[in-house]
């Protein structure tokens, strides 16, 4: 489907007869009332996203403005949420019925959780409007929780646990290649930790980043949280190794890493306070904008594993898009959802943080307008590495291709049990076996609940 085709579909949002009658009735009532009230004729769509850097906001505003121009009478309002705050905000929104029309950039496991509780509108119409053939093969499989019904769709891909490196610091430390194993990473961090620069910005706080990091480490140690049939598999040597590695890295992280979340961890690397980083491709634009002197020295690789025998495992959030079932103005909402993939605006959105959110449509990835970006050109090798890692990536909602979708993954991440596991082992020095046992029990409780 061409750009014009999507736009044409969006332009003529159909309104049902009942909606039209209701609208006419409302209009008549408004005409009789004070003139200040007439502004309420406008249909307002609320759009929530935790991704709201100034560049992204600018891209969103472009998309909103264009959609509003094409659809007079529809107003779109963007509202920020956050990676740590979306769950309580959405819980309150669902409970009160005051839901946003569209939610983007939440991890896919959040979508499956809401879908399994009957809170979401099927996304099939939107996928059909965008054109299923445009997506990468299997890109929407993670959202097909019930056969033939899509809970949402991806608005992008992400490689959340890339290892970011400073080539200049590696060279100074006489390290000639990027670390591939945990031992090599530890040695490199030790060698580079000097002169006020710490080795790594791993998070040790009670938040989603710590949760996602330890889940990644368990996989990088060759383990998994659940078996493919979703039986508990946490109590394993791999989990012990992951926790031991996490603990061993503490002395190589800044003291305040006990309070680090995504923002602090990224800032530590971008500002030059740490020699390595763990993040998505957002590091690229932030380094170029905020710390240009190191911009020519940064690169990324997939995160090292416990040994070269274990394959790397990339945490892909599968940044999503979904529509709450209770959303008002459903037809306009779906039209807006489809419009967000319109190349002109979508590319601008992706360029707002190049490499951070990677395109989910192959037609966009191949589009010369997408490729025509200074950051993507300058770091083509890194973007390629991230794209490949994200394409093979997984998360707790879908640990490996053999796993069933885990609709409780969002609740498990939101509960903070994994982050507590890390804190108990690293900060409290609690017995690892006891902690793993307690964590497994807590997760089983959530799975049954």
């Amino acid at each position: 489907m061409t750009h014009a085709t999507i736009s044409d579909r969006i332009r003529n949002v159909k309104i049902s007869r009942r909606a039209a009658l209701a609208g006419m009735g409302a209009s008549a009532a408004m005409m009789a009332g004070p003139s200040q009230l007439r502004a309420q004729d406008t249909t307002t769509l609320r759009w929530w996203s935790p991704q709201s850097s100034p560049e992204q906001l600018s891209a969103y505003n472009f998309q909103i403005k264009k959609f509003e121009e094409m659809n007079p009478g529809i107003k779109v309002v963007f509202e920020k949420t956050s990676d740590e705050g979306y769950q309580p905000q959405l819980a309150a929104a669902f409970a009160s019925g005051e839901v946003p029309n569209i939610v983007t950039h939440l991890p896919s496991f959040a979508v499956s959780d809401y879908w399994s509780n009957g809170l979401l509108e099927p996304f099939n119409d939107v996928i059909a409007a965008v054109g299923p053939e445009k997506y990468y093969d299997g890109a929407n499989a993670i959202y097909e929780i019930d056969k033939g019904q899509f809970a949402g769709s991806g608005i992008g891909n992400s490689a959340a646990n890339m290892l970011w490196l400073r080539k200049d610091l590696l060279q100074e430390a006489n390290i000639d290649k990027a670390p591939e194993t945990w031992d090599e990473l530890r040695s490199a961090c030790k060698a580079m930790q000097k002169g006020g620069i710490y080795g790594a910005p791993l998070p040790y706080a009670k938040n989603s980043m710590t949760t996602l990091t330890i889940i990644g480490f368990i996989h990088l140690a060759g383990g998994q949280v659940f078996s493919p049939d979703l039986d508990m598999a946490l109590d394993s040597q791999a989990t012990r190794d992951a926790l031991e590695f996490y603990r061993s890295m503490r002395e190589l992280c800044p003291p305040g890493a006990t309070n680090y979340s995504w923002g602090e961890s990224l800032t530590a690397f971008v500002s030059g306070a740490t020699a390595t980083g763990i993040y998505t491709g957002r590091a690229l634009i932030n380094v170029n904008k905020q710390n240009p002197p190191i911009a020519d020295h940064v690169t990324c690789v997939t995160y090292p594993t416990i040994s070269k025998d274990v394959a790397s495992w990339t945490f892909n959030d599968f940044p999503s898009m979904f529509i709450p079932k209770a959303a008002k103005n459903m037809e306009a909402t779906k039209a807006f959802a489809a419009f967000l993939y319109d190349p002109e605006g979508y590319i601008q959105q992706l360029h707002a943080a190049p490499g951070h959110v990677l395109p989910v449509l192959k037609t966009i990835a191949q589009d010369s307008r997408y490729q025509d970006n200074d950051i993507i050109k300058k770091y083509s090798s890194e973007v390629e590495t991230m794209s490949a890692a994200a394409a093979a990536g997984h998360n707790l909602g879908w640990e490996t291709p053999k796993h069933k979708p885990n609709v409780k993954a969002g609740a498990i991440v939101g509960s903070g049990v994994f982050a507590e596991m890390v804190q108990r082992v690293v900060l409290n020095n609690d017995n690892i076996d006891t902690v793993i046992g307690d964590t497994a029990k807590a997760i089983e409780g959530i799975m049954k609940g």
Partner: protein
Amino acid sequence: MTQQQKTPLERQYGLLGVMLIAPTVLVFCAVIVYPLVSAIYLSLFSIYTPTLKGDWVGLDNYAELLSGSEFWSSLWNNIIWTVGTLTLQIVFGVGMALLLHQNLWFRSLARSLILFPYFVSTVVAVLVWRWLFNDLYGILNHLVIFSGLSEMPLDWLGSMPNAMLSVIFVGAWKYFPFVVIAVLARLQTIPEQLYEAARIDGAGPISRFIDVTLPQLRDVLVVIIMLRAIWDFKEFDLIYLLTGGGPVISTQTLPLLVYKEAFALNRMGMASAYAVVMMAIMLVFMIAYIRRTGRADS
């Protein structure tokens, strides 16, 4: 005894009284009784927050709550936080009020500026303090290293006991102006003759403070302590934004536990049970406050 027959006028007055009090009763029911009854009702169910659907579990939530360690550790944290921050608020507040009661040349300006922490939004205050506590760029760590107290930056918010001490200190900084306002107002009404008499009797500054000022402040301090104890006990935003209850659950107080149950674990029924128990605990403070103010009125 036979009941005396009411005249039509008296009956009309009675009806008028009911009509006049009705709006107040209705508002009271809407904003106090209804939420209270709802919370108690919800606490008897196992409810998934986003859908508000659930099953009747009776008193199971309370049994789980009382048998689990998290409630007791959160209650203990709540007590440490409340006692710690309240003590500092009273000490800072009384000290600052005494200072501002002196005839200083910048007194008017200082009296205005001292209210700043109390008026500034909690979110802004916490952001500022988090920046001050920052391990890499925070001025506190620069001072610590510069003064030679430590070679490495201190982890103010991520390890114990630093996290609890930091939260208590920031809480005291934020709320001590309330104590200053109340105590300063009372100080200005203490008759000067009492101090003159004490001086004639040979009392020094400390004796005058202990024997004249403190007894005069006693009533206002009791009310301040009661009110601030209630407010501090249910403090949520400042602690949540500073530490999120961490490390692990070391600074998690009961309001944070209620929030975690309701919105992180999506267990609204359990959260309501915690809230009801918390309300019962706060009732003790409230009864003490009501009895105290009632006695003062009488």
